[in-house]
Each structure stands twice: as C-alpha cells, then as structure tokens.
C-alpha cells in the first residue's frame, strides 16, 4: 500500500511536469495563434474582436507568465481547454469529448482483442512447440512487418472497393443521427470491422511472439518440472504454472499499450477517415490549431500516465515479488 502511494505521488509529479510543459511550449513557439486565426478570417475581424480573442486564448501580453500559468490551471481544473480554431468557436474539450469515444471504442477493443488472442495463441504455441501452430508465426510476423498504412490501404482496396463488403471510411453511416439505438450502433460496428481487423492483424504477432518465447523459457523452469512430477493435470501445469509466470512481461506490455490507445492510432484514423482523436490531431496540426493540439497532447499524456499506474497495480497483483511488506 505504501508502495502504491509512492507510485501515485510519482505519477502526480510527472503529470504536473507534463502539464506545465504543455503550457509552456505553445508560448515559446514562434507565431501567435491569434495571428493565425486572423489569417484564417482574412482580416474580417476588427480590433476589439482581436483583443477579446487574445484574452480568450489566454495570451494577454499584459499578464505575467505566472498569472497566465495560474489561469491555465484554474481553467484546466474547470475542464476548460480553450477554443478550437478549426471548429471555432467550439471548445476544445467538446471536440475531444466527441472524438475520444470513437478512438477508445475502436482501438481499446482491438488492443484488448489482439492481446487476448495473441497471448492465448502464444501460450499454446509455446507449450506445444513443434506442432502445426508454429506455422502461424511466420505468417503473423510477416503481416505485422507490413507498414500499417499500406495494410490499411490494401484492405480498403480489396474489401471496400474491389469487393465492397465494408465501407471504406468514416465511423458510421452519415445519414444516421448519432444516438444509442440499434441502427446507429450496428452501423458503427459495421464501419469498425475493417479498421479493427487491420489493427488486430498488425498487432497480434507481437503478442504471440512475446508470449511464446516466455512460455518456452518458463517451461524449462524447475517448478514446471515439479508441477509435472506432482501429477497435476496438464491444464493446471500449463496455465497455473507456466503461463501464469510467462504472462507477466506481456501484462506490463499490455498496460503500456493501453496508454498509446489514445495517441497511437493516427495512421489508422487517417487511412480510414475514422472520426477519432488521431484524425482530430492530424487536422489540428494541419490547421495550426494550437489549443486543440494542446488539448489532445494533454489527454495523451494523462492516459499514458494512467496506463503506467495501471501497469504497476496489475503487476503488483500478479507478481508477489514486487509487493513490499508493510
């Protein structure tokens, strides 16, 4: 418990540092978001509008940096991340709130599926090495070696264009109004099949390989031999002794990959024009939409930290050696 509190304190400090850097970077960059916005509206704004924009973005030159910093924090704690340029005057928090669920659902589910699938296959290939299951390895490794955007484009070319089985882009049918009803959810699932499948295909090999190698290593441990000599059932030896120890590195890898769910899917969402946070970030970069970028970065940072904390907790629950005695 003490260890957990220590970790928590460590992550709080890290979060504070990340947020502070997130605050400083746009202020140290050349160029001014207000000027950028003025350029977008091509001089259609008058001076009072410019002044209020400056105040709105928190870039008031009359304020000290410290003042800006404290304002930034108080806004942040209210959940106010400023206004987006691209979707002006929609608040950044709203833009993120709209796109985050798409990313979480698509990438979250596929990360979970590829982890469970890959680890499961890895357990069996590692336990019965030399069986036909080993034939899966070169195939999956080959697929995972293909650059993702190419895999995605091929998938679109084959299954959306040549044989139009699945939609080629978007997160749902545009004729539907987003709502929690069956037509919308089924449409969202249908649109998610192709991007989801390509993510699983490209990610599963890593899990299989990692788990198989650990299974092979752990299988030669003395305690696995002891378990066999004890006459335990093969299932108990395979899962309770071998896999239970072999899965530990995969678990921490999984917890870390959870952190990248939010940020690591830029390519998927670009290729499939999926309305997630990666696509949003891509558009924000293109439009020099600083507040939106800042907001997305903040969310990514916080989710990576949260995933790290989660990894610590899971590891502690699974491996008694990392627990410290109180």
């Amino acid at each position, binding site marked *: 418990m003490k260890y957990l509190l220590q970790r928590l304190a460590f992550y709080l400090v890290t979060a504070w540092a990340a947020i502070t850097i997130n605050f400083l970077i746009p202020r140290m960059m050349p160029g001014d978001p207000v000027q950028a916005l003025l350029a977008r509206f091509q001089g259609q704004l008058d001076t009072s509008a410019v002044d209020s924009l400056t105040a709105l973005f928190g870039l008031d030159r009359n304020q000290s940096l410290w003042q800006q910093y404290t304002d930034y924090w108080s806004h942040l704690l209210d959940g106010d991340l400023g206004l987006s340029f691209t979707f002006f005057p929609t608040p950044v928090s709203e833009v993120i709130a709209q796109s985050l669920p798409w990313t979480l659902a698509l990438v979250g589910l596929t990360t979970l599926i590829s982890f469970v699938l890959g680890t499961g296959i890895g357990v069996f290939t590692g336990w019965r090495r030399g069986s036909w299951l080993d034939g899966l390895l070169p195939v999956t490794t080959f697929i995972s070696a293909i650059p993702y955007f190419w895999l995605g484009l091929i998938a679109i070319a084959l299954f959306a264009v040549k044989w139009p089985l699945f939609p080629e882009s978007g997160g749902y049918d545009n004729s539907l109004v987003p709502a929690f009803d069956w037509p919308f959810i089924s449409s969202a699932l249908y649109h998610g099949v192709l991007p989801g499948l390509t993510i699983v295909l490209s990610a599963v090999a890593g899990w299989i390989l990692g788990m198989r190698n650990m299974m092979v290593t752990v299988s030669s441990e003395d305690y696995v031999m002891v378990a066999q*000599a*004890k006459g335990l059932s*093969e299932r108990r030896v395979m899962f309770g002794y071998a896999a239970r120890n072999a899965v530990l590195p995969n678990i921490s890898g999984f917890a870390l990959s959870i952190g990248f769910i939010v940020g690591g899917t830029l390519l998927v969402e670009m290729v499939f024009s999926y309305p997630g946070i990666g696509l949003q970030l891509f558009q924000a970069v293109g439009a020099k939409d600083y507040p939106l970028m800042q907001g997305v970065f903040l969310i990514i940072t916080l989710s990576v930290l949260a995933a790290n904390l989660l990894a610590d907790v899971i590891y502690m629950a699974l491996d008694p050696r990392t627990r410290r005695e109180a």
Partner: protein
Amino acid sequence: MSEPVLTVRGLNVDYGTGDDAVHALRDIDLTLHRGEVLGLAGESGSGKSTLAYAVTRLLSPPGVITGGEVHYHRRDGGALDLLALSAAGLRAFRWQELSIVFQGAMNSLNPVHTVHSQLTDVLRAHRPGMKRSERTARARELLALVGISADRLSAYPHQLSGGMRQRVMIAMALALEPEIVIMDEPTTALDVVMQRQILSQLVRLREELGFSVVFITHDISLLIEFSDRIAIMYGGRIVEEARAAAIYRDPHHPYSDGLLHSFPALHGARRELTGIPGSPPHLSAMPAGCAFHPRCGKALDACAGHVPVLAAPDGDASRTVACWLHRPAPATAAPRP
C-alpha cells in the same frame, strides 16, 4: 532382503535421435527394495539425474528412452509397467507412489503461488474428495513435519530462505505418503549446517513413514553415512553396487575406490587424499570397452576392447561390479561390437 518396490531392467536413454544421438544411460539394472535408502553416486554427467528423470518419465526432449523396463511393485504384489503407462495413468502414479525432491531448491517452487497453494494443489489433484479445510489441515501437518511453523503457509517462495524452501519441497514430496521418494542432490545448494539438519530430518521422517529413498549425489561420504546400499555410476552405466559398508571398506571397482579417496573422512585415521586423474569422458565420445579404462591405474589389456558386464564378483553374491579385475578377463582378440 525385503521385496523390491522399483525394478529397472536394461534401461537405455539417448539424448537426440539417429546418428547424432548421445547415449546417456546404457543397460541400467537397478532394484530398489521397500524401505531402503539407495544411494546413487557419480561425477557430473554420469547419468544420475537422467536415471531419475527416465524412471519417472520426466525426461524432456531431446531425451528418449530407447529400451528397457521399469516396474513399480505395489504392496499387494501387482506390478505397474511405468514405461507403458497412459498419460492419465502416469499422472495418477506420479507423486501418489513416487515423488521427487529436485536439485534446484531455489527454483522448485512457483514464485507466484503461496506455499499453501502449492502444497494443496497436489492434494486437490490426487484426492478430489478432500475438503478445503482438510487440505489446509494437511498442509499445516506437512509443514510441522519438516519443522516449519504453520504461519508460513501464506508466504511466497521468495519470502523463505533456501533451507526453508528445500524443507517445503520435502514436505510436499511427502504430501501423499508415497512409497518412493527420489532425492536429486537435495542439499547441494545449501550450506553444510543446513545439509546436516535436513538430512537428519529426512532420516527421522523415513523411519516414521517408511518410504524408500533413491538418494542422488556426488558426495559419496554423505551416502556412506545415510544409505543402505550404494550404486556407483560412470559414463552412463552402473559400475558397482553394494551395501554402503562394503563399498566403504572394500570398494571393488577402481572408480569407486577413487571416489572414496577423494573425500576426507571425519573419523578414523588420517589418510592421503588422492583424486582421480583425467576428467570424465564426454558422452558423445565414449572410450571403447570399459569407459573408465583411460583413467584407470589398474587397466588390463581386455579393458580397452570389452565392456565389462555388471555381475557378482567371484564368490560374493551380495554385490555386483562391472570390472575385469574381478572376473576372468576375455582373450584380447576380437573386440565385441
């Protein structure tokens, strides 16, 4: 002598198959009698542990049993062919009739499960009718048997010392009160004081529970003290087998003699310690004839060409030895294939 509980006949074990195969065990004949302690001694690589693993069919690839028989004899007189057992039959046999205390005291326990869980899962597998509370009670009893307090049940292996871990393993080996316990260098990783403590505990437990022990070690002085009979292995064969006292007083095989003289005795007159010249042969390049002859000071001409058979020496039926010094050597003509 009492009835046999485990008999091994003509056991051969190879590592690998085909032309590259290395013969790790050749024509092993061994009998373990009920209630006795049989010591198995020899240098590293002589096949001691391979024998233990082959008998329990725990050899992992590339180890293959290429011939021979292993029979387990029940108290009611029925015999069980261990090499022909089905997977389910083998699981039921293991630990119930024959348990093993392995070499690596440090790594024999699963690091992510508690002592309790590892002591009781064997009960759960072999005694399906046992209640949870009964299993826990049995686990406490077992720990008490080896002198560990019951509050260590909830401990994880990394919280125990090496000696405690090995004692937990011994307790675990006794969980189902098996007929045979194979101890594969159970004390090698421990310091001398702990060794002594554990061994005297073992002797006491064996007297209480009456199981038979196969005790594998390279420390022959330990065997002379603790075992009833000793089998000496060299190059994958048993070269001599006799009562412990007989081996100590009058070793027949020059290798046994060499082993005995490489350990200092604690009692008795001082004597010169001599090692055995040379080093053990590699299993893939075994010398022809008696495997020991290149290192043997008493080698005859016959030793290089003919493999001596393990048999009783002239005029003494209580022991066996595989050495041409103790039987009429064959004419040195055509060596046997």
